[in-house]
């Protein structure tokens, strides 16, 4: 457990991608099987436990330490797992320190009743770093900045093979990945690389640089289509095997049996997973009701029917189209989709245009219908092959500009993690007029980022200097017509919400600018915000 804990600890502190790769490579090259396989699985999210709830962990700690001392400690540290890891009283010589494979084995077979005892025994035997890693593992939140992509890159470097080679076999492998390591260490051949319905590494788009790219590239070389506001999926049906992958190769079919049923074809398509209402795309918020679930019941599926808007064809029957230019793949896709009978799979239409200027106008003012709720535009070179990764040039995304609103800071809460100790979570509101014509602020959202460390320090000071009330960890900040701090908030979309007092909920709100100069009374009003409802 020590080496794994040490790896997690270092990854958490290391911002640089290259340095993370070095740490991963070093660990994977030195740790024994099957430990490194389980470590890899937990880092990439292939292995998660929710064996222990925070409340239980807290209770276990308070049985060992005076609750007041515990709460003083928790206030200082700001993270439950870390607090427990630090305050857990040492019991030298109590037990042998558990190894990661033992922990994994035990958790996979233990009953709910046995977990508490196991946990206490392990905590007694580990040092504080080991306890931290264990608690992070048990609560399913490693959060050390390692994406599946990064882990695969480390594997690629370790075995000196292209990362796409790893991605192609990745899905057919299961933890603790003995065959994969044997291949990377040249002890055996590449495992299962021709498994049917395997994940094909996805081609991604670069964000366009409006200042330089339009000069460099000719409009006639590109096709444009709308950037749909769902999630990227790869849908495969090969030799009777059906799969629905996220863009990182995670199989999400369990949550979408309705989509899986609609894959009445032989091949692999690339497209956007959306909720469809009578053939029209619904806002992202609807799709969210279906994401991150282990399954879906009939009622949920009826209310939020899911489908795929296809934009590329990777396999047509047994024919691999990835080495064909986009123009040819597109023709094949149109034919392929036209043959399908299910209404759950449709074609993402191309948006004709003749110049970048014309496209810019379309982006600013999309035509009636689904494009109105698109996230922006996608540009694909007609001659682009389907390449894994994010090559520069063949594909671009050109996102819509975010909505902006001037709101007033109303409440602040201390952050966690890097920001513990700082008031970094801000609830903001806009003006609303009641029947008597009185204006008051109504909260419309919460933002945690978008500011620099320097700005955070100033915001934190503002909150402390202008606190008018406290409710537990929340501070109410002075905000009235004569005084208040205006935050310019950027967000991607707005939906009706019954859970919010104001009746609206923002998608992806962040602080765009801090308007130290703007009087609070000049912030926006609720009706002007409501005009932006999706």
């Amino acid at each position, binding site marked *: 457990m020590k080496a794994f804990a*040490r790896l997690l600890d*270092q990854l*958490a*502190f*290391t*911002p640089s991608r290259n*340095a993370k790769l*070095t*740490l991963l490579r*070093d660990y994977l090259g030195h740790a024994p099987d099957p430990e490194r396989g389980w470590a890899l699985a937990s880092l990439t999210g292939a292995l998660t436990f929710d064996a222990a709830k925070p409340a239980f962990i807290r209770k276990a700690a308070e049985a060992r*330490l*005076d609750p*007041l*001392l*515990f709460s*003083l*400690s928790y206030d*200082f*540290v*700001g*993270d439950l797992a*870390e*607090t427990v890891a*630090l*305050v857990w009283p*040492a019991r030298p010589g109590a037990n042998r320190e558990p190894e990661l494979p033992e922990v994994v084995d035990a958790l996979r077979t233990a009953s709910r009743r046995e977990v508490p005892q196991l946990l206490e025994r392990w905590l007694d035997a580990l*040092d*504080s770093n080991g306890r931290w890693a264990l608690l992070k593992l048990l609560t399913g939140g490693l959060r050390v900045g390692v994406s599946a992509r990064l882990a695969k890159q480390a594997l690629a470097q370790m075995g000196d093979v292209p990362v796409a080679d790893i991605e192609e076999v990745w899905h057919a492998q299961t933890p603790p990945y003995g065959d994969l390591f044997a291949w990377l260490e040249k002890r055996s051949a590449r495992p299962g690389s021709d498994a049917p319905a395997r994940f094909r590494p996805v081609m991604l788009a670069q964000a366009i640089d409006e200042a330089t790219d339009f000069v460099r590239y000719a409009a006639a070389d590109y096709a444009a289509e709308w950037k749909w506001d769902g999630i990227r999926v790869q849908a495969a049906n090969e030799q009777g095997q059906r799969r629905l992958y996220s863009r990182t190769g995670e199989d999400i079919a369990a949550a979408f049996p309705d989509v899986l049923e609609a894959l009445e074809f032989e091949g692999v398509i690339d497209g956007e997973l959306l909720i469809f209402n009578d053939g029209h795309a619904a806002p992202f918020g609807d799709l969210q009701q279906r994401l991150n679930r282990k399954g879906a019941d009939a009622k949920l599926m009826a209310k939020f029917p899911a489908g795929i808007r296809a934009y590329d064809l990777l396999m047509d029957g047994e024919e691999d189209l990835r080495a064909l230019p986009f123009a040819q793949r597109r023709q094949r896709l149109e034919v392929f989709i036209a043959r399908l009978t299910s209404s759950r799979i449709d074609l993402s239409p191309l948006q004709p245009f003749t110049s970048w200027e014309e496209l810019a106008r379309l982006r600013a003012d999309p035509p009636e219908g689904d494009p109105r709720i698109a996230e922006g535009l996608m540009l694909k070179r007609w001659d682009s092959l389907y390449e894994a990764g994010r090559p520069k040039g063949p594909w671009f995304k050109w996102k819509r500009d975010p909505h902006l609103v001037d709101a007033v800071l109303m409440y602040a809460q201390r952050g*966690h*993690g*890097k*920001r*513990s*100790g*700082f008031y970094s979570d801000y609830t903001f509101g806009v003006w609303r007029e009641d029947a008597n014509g009185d204006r008051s602020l109504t909260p419309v959202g919460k933002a945690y980022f978008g500011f620099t460390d320097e700005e955070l320090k100033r915001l934190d000071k503002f909150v402390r200097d202008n606190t008018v009330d406290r409710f537990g960890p929340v501070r109410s900040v002075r905000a009235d017509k004569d005084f208040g701090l205006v935050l310019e908030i950027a967000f991607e979309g707005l939906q009706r919400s019954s859970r919010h007092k104001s009746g609206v909920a923002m998608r992806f709100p962040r602080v765009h600018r801090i308007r130290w100069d703007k009087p609070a009374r000049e912030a926006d009003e609720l009706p002007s915000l409501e005009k932006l409802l999706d």
Partner: protein
Amino acid sequence: MGPLMSSFRQLLRNTPEGLYCPPGDFYVDPVRPVDRAVITHGHSDHARGGHGSVLATPETLAIMAARYGQDFAGATEAAPYGKAIARGGVNVTMVPAGHVLGSAQAVLRWKDITIVVSGDYKRRRDPTCPLFEPVPCHVFVSEATFGLPVFRFPDAADEVAKLLKSVALFPERTHLVGAYALGKAQRIICLLRDAGYDKTLYMHGALASMNALYEQHGVALGPTAPATDAARNALPGEIVIAPPSAIADKWARRFADPIPAFASGWMTVRARARQRHVELPLVISDHADWDELTETITELKPEELWITHGSEDALLRWSELNGITAHALEIIGYEDEDE
């Protein structure tokens, strides 16, 4: 407060200037200039310039002279460890505190009362100064810089091993270790030497005078060189030691893709390390951790515990649970150097 408390207060009491001893007419570690001061150790929050007279260990006097100039006080008197010195009717003895070079507990004896003002202290072995000596007393005046159960420091040798492992893993980068100029920097150097690291260690200019002073007092630091005349992208694979404020500063940009490290007890808490943009936190402290604080109090069993500064809430609660009378003095002005 009972009668005992008031008799203790005849010997030592809290004033705006700091702890004052009426029968001896002197202050211990005063936070403002006074006529007569007893100084426990050389960190700037405890040892200020401008006092009329200063009583301290010879090492502490040397440190103050190096920091503030030879005329840092009107008069000085050196009190070597263990030598009782009379001040009015009060016997003052300096006893090792194990914090930094020259650091001492001021043991005050008057009539039948003994009060120990421990200053800052730790209980671990430190190659740069003698080990803390427990002195039985009626009142133990303790710091509580790390007075929370979250602070349980690992073995310093393990932390240094972490640093050396990182140096081996990233040979193309400079490791930039933030360490307080007085005490921590020299301890890190000695710990690295103990771990078998015999290469040249590179120093920020602000460390030169303290390093020289430590060497004059018999603490061997091995080969060192200034880091400051280095060219751009200099010193790949080397270890540079600098005051904590320098590691995230423009000064650090001259080195080869530096990895900022920081040796401090605060590095126990991950968020603290991240706030300072530290990528390699080294939990090495010259203060007592929670176990050292509570074990020291348990060992000494003083009639009263007075807490000068730090996280007193938790230590007060612990004292309550363990049947020890404790008071927080809430002295303003003591804090970690360079924090």
